[in-house]
C-alpha cells in the first residue's frame, strides 16, 4: 500500500510517499532531508504533534503556551482539557512550566511569553 503525505516539519511542505506492507514501512521517498524521513516514519506508525494554545492567568487574561515536545496526535484534545484547567501565575516568565508531564507523555506545557506584557 502507498501512502501520500505532506511533510509538516518545515514550510517547504514536501510531498512524501511511503510504501507500506501492513504496518511495515518498505520505502520512503519525496523527502529532501533526514527530518522529513523521520516524519514519514512516525506519521505512519504513531503520528505526533505539538499543541499550541493559551492558558488562563490568575486574575484575568491568557498567556500563550505550547507542549515543549510533540505528543501523540490522538491526545491533542485531552491535552487541551488539561491546559484549560491550568491557572498560570501573573508573574510567570517565558518557558515556565504550566502542566508538567502532560498526560504522561513526557512533554511539559510551557508558556511562550511572559504573562505580564
Amino acid at each position, binding site marked *: 500500500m502507498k501512502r501520500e503525505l505532506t511533510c509538516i516539519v518545515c514550510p517547504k511542505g514536501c510531498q512524501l510517499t511511503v510504501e507500506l506492507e501492513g504496518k511495515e514501512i518498505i520505502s520512503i521517498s519525496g523527502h529532501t532531508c533526514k527530518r522529513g524521513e523521520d516524519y514519514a516514519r512516525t506519521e505512519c506508525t504513531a503520528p505526533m504533534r505539538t499543541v499550541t494554545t*493559551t492558558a488562563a492567568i490568575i486574575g484575568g487574561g491568557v498567556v*500563550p503556551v505550547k507542549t515543549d515536545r510533540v505528543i501523540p496526535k490522538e491526545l491533542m484534545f485531552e491535552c487541551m482539557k488539561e491546559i484549560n484547567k491550568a491557572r498560570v501565575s501573573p508573574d510567570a516568565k517565558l518557558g515556565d512550566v504550566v502542566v508538567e508531564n502532560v498526560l504522561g507523555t513526557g512533554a511539559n506545557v510551557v508558556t511562550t511569553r511572559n504573562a505580564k506584557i
Partner: protein
Amino acid sequence: MKSVDLVIVGGGPAGMSAAVAAYDAGIKDILILERDKSLGGILRQCIHNGFGLHRFKEELTGPEYAYRYEIQVKERNIPFKTETMVLDISEDKVVTAMNSTDGMFQIKAKAIILAMGCRERPKGALNIAGTRPAGIFTAGTAQKFVNMDGYMPGKKVVILGSGDIGLIMARRMTLEGAEVKAVCELMPYSGGLARNIEQCLNDFGIPLMLSHTVVEIHGKERVEGVTIAKVDDRRRPIPETKQYIECDTLLLSCGLLPENELTRAAGISIDRITSGAVVDENRQTDIEGVFACGNVLHVHDLVDYVSEESDIAGKAAARYIKGENAAALPCTVELETDGRVRYTVPQRIVGKEDVTVYFRVADVFRDIKITVRDGERVIISKKKQKVAPGEMETVKITKDMLASLEGNKLTFSIE
C-alpha cells in the same frame, strides 16, 4: 525639532531586526516607534509554532520568535516608544507621531525604515450579498480575540479563503471547541502552505473546498448561515451548486495588503503588484534614505525571510547615515517579469554585489524552469517540480553575473 539618526516605523519582527542590524553596523542613535502595547507586532498573536527554522534552526512559536528580537533590542538599549502612532512622514524625513505621554511630536531623521507590516483584506472588498450581522471577522481579528483576549468569537465556523491565517485559525478554533465546517477557496489551489493544510485541516477532517466561494450571508443579528457555491473557470458562481451551511461565524482569510498609507503620503513610488514600495537591493525606496522591509514591502510567508530582509535594510540604512552610500551608484539594472512571475523584490539593482531576488508566481506551475535573461541570453535556469502563488521563491544574482551584464534589464520568467 528633535533629530535622530534612524527612525524605524514599526516594532514588529521587521522593525526589530532592522534596528538590531543598524545598531550592530554602528548606528546607535535609533528610535523605534510602535503603535501597539509592546514590541513584537503581529507575532504576538501568532501563538502557533513553525517560526525560526531558518533563522534559529529551531521551531519557535510567534511570541518566542518575537522575544528573541525583543531581547536583542533591549540588550543594546535601543530606544523604542510603544502605543505611538506615526501620522506622517515627509519627503525631507520629518516624522510626525503621537502618543499619550509626548502628545503629538515631530522628529527629523537622517534615515527612516518603514516596517509597518500588512493588514487583511476586509469583507467590503469582496462584496458578498446578504445581510450584515455580527459574526463576520477577518481571521486575524478572530485570532486576536482568541489568542490575546481569551474569548471565543464563534462556535460554528465557515472560513472563506485559504490563506495561512485562516488555516491556522481553523485548527485554533477547533482545539478551543468550535466546529469548523469548511474552508472555501475561490481559486483552484490553496493560498496557504501545504503543511498548514495538512496539520490544520486534514488533522481535524476539515474539508478544503477549492473553487468555491460564499455567495450569500444569512442572519439578522448574528450570522445564522452562509450559502456557498462552486465557481466556474472564470470564478463566477454556478447557481446549481449552491448549498447552505449553518454557522454562526464567517472568517475571512482572503489575502494580506501591505499597509502603505504613510509611504504613499510621503510620495514614494508603489509597485502595483506588491502594493509595497519600489526598492533596490538595499531596500531603499525612491526617496533617498527611506528604506522599507518586511510585510510592508511585500507579503512574506515566513518571518525568517522578513528578518533576513530587514537585516539588509538595517545595514543599508547604517551605511547611508555614515555617508557610505552617498554617491549615486552607476550600475542600475531593472528587474522585469513575464506575468507568470508576478513580481520581484527588489525591483532594481544599483550595486555590484550578490543579490538574492525574491519573487512570486501567478499560478500553480509544475515541472518548469525559472529563467532569468539578460536580453536574449539566459543567465539563470533553475528547474522546479512545482511553484505556487502561496510560496515565495528566490534566485541569486551573483556579482559575476552583474559584472558581465550586457543590457540594463533582467527578465524573470517561468518556462
